[in-house]
């Protein structure tokens, strides 16, 4: 309907964004009437979301077609931001930033490196930045979910952990069931995505490729490649972050030194 009144493509997109934002605000308003106050958060998130994505768009117009090292710089910046966000989501664990940083840098870096090395991901910034960002975002979410679950498990089972230590068990033994639960929790979204691929959802990469005129079968196969990469990222990052948080939680003398902040 909007394109009947607006001919300029940029103005049209802005109008579409405004329409989507109004819909989101209406939902927040309805929620408030049900005594669920999310208006402020909705407004802040919408303003933040549009600002961030427009800035990224501007950055991409600068980076695309330029030197390849620029994409490495952009991906590194995204990784650092992801580590900071994941650390904020699990801020009850003291000193957790170094764990999220190492997990995301290594987890996402390893998958991006291997995929670029195998030429599954094209080295051009136009491909590397968007696909790399998906991998980093997935590593961030996996890390946050796994660490949050680890925190909850340790809080709930401090007695059992210390009882095990007091019986002469190694920290690796007493914490093993809780690390397993944390890895599983971190991987749930990626496992679900892989399972429901094509049945419940047609992901953005495939939709974009089809809209751009690529053969749907080719688009589908590439989408599978992307989702499989995300799965590999989740597995690698979940294992790495639980490995790092384990050594973060215990001292060399096998003492549980992790004390949660309020």
């Amino acid at each position, binding site marked *: 309907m909007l394109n009947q009144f607006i001919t300029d493509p940029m103005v049209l997109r802005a109008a579409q964004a405004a329409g989507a934002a109004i819909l989101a605000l209406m939902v927040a308003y309805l929620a408030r009437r049900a005594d669920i106050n999310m208006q402020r958060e909705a407004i802040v998130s919408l303003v933040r979301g549009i600002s961030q994505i427009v800035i990224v768009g501007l950055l991409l117009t600068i980076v695309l077609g330029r030197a390849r090292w620029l994409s490495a710089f952009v991906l590194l910046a995204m990784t650092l931001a992801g580590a900071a966000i994941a650390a904020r989501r699990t801020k009850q664990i003291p000193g957790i930033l170094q764990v999220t940083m190492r997990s995301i840098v290594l987890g996402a870096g390893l998958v991006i490196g291997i995929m670029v090395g195998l030429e599954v991901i094209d080295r051009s910034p136009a491909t590397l930045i968007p696909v790399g960002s998906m991998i980093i975002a997935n590593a961030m979410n996996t890390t946050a979910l796994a660490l949050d679950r680890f925190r909850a498990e340790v809080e709930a089972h401090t007695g*059992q952990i210390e*009882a*095990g*230590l*007091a*019986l*002469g068990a*190694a920290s690796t033994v007493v914490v093993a069931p809780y690390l397993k639960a944390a890895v599983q929790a971190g991987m749930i979204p990626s496992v679900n995505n892989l399972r429901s691929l094509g049945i419940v959802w047609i992901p953005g990469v495939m939709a974009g490729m089809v809209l751009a005129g690529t053969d749907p079968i080719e688009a589908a196969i590439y989408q599978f490649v992307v989702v499989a990469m995300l799965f590999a990222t989740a597995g690698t990052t979940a294992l790495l972050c639980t490995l790092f948080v384990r050594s973060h939680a215990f001292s060399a*003398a096998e*003492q549980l030194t992790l004390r949660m902040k309020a």
Partner: protein
Amino acid sequence: MTDNSRTGGGIHAGSASYAGRATVIETRKLSRTVQGKLLVDDISLEVKQGEIVAVVGPSGAGKSSFLRLINRLDEPTGGTVYLDGLDYRQLAPRELRRRVGMVMQSAYLFPGTVAENLCFGPRQHGEDLPVQEIDRLLEQTGLEGFAQREVLHLSGGEAQRVSLARTLANKPEVLLLDEPTSALDERAEREIEALLMRVLRDHHLTALMVTHDTAQAERIADRAILIEAGRLILNGSVQEVLNAEPVHH
């Protein structure tokens, strides 16, 4: 600093009947500070072979913190502990904890059967607990026929018995008991207490037991120490310490 005027001028040598025996546990100027707060303050204590020492004092005085330091579940920020004359920092923490067993306020059993819980400690040191040994420990702790019971279905008293049997399965030389009966009802408390007295004597174990129950301290212990605000205030006969303890007596 410890109030030496009340502890007889330094490390107490233990009650008279244990005077000639070897010292098994010695804490020397043991301290722990967390975020500027002194939890344990310069405690020096000797415990002789086979001696049972009650640790009394008001809530939050640092009694449990003191026990955790002896098991090295927490790291001292000052001083150290000697086990059979050896600085415990020279022992691997896992070996130390096998030799110095700890029974906590709650049982904290692992999911699974009673037998699996009993086998846990020895397995950490590469040993399989023979079935006869499991049966012997269960009999000793009044749990005959409980080997294959799921721990989920145990009462509080039964769970604490399993916790004691699980610690004994490691064949410790010293037992640290951190209010082992405080989470139980009166009947279970008396049963566990009787069991403890029997087991401690049968195994000739050296023990430190935190208790808030002065009558229990009188029944079980050979000697008592009073801790207040992390400091060792008094070290002497049970009666002497209980008479001096203002809160519980």
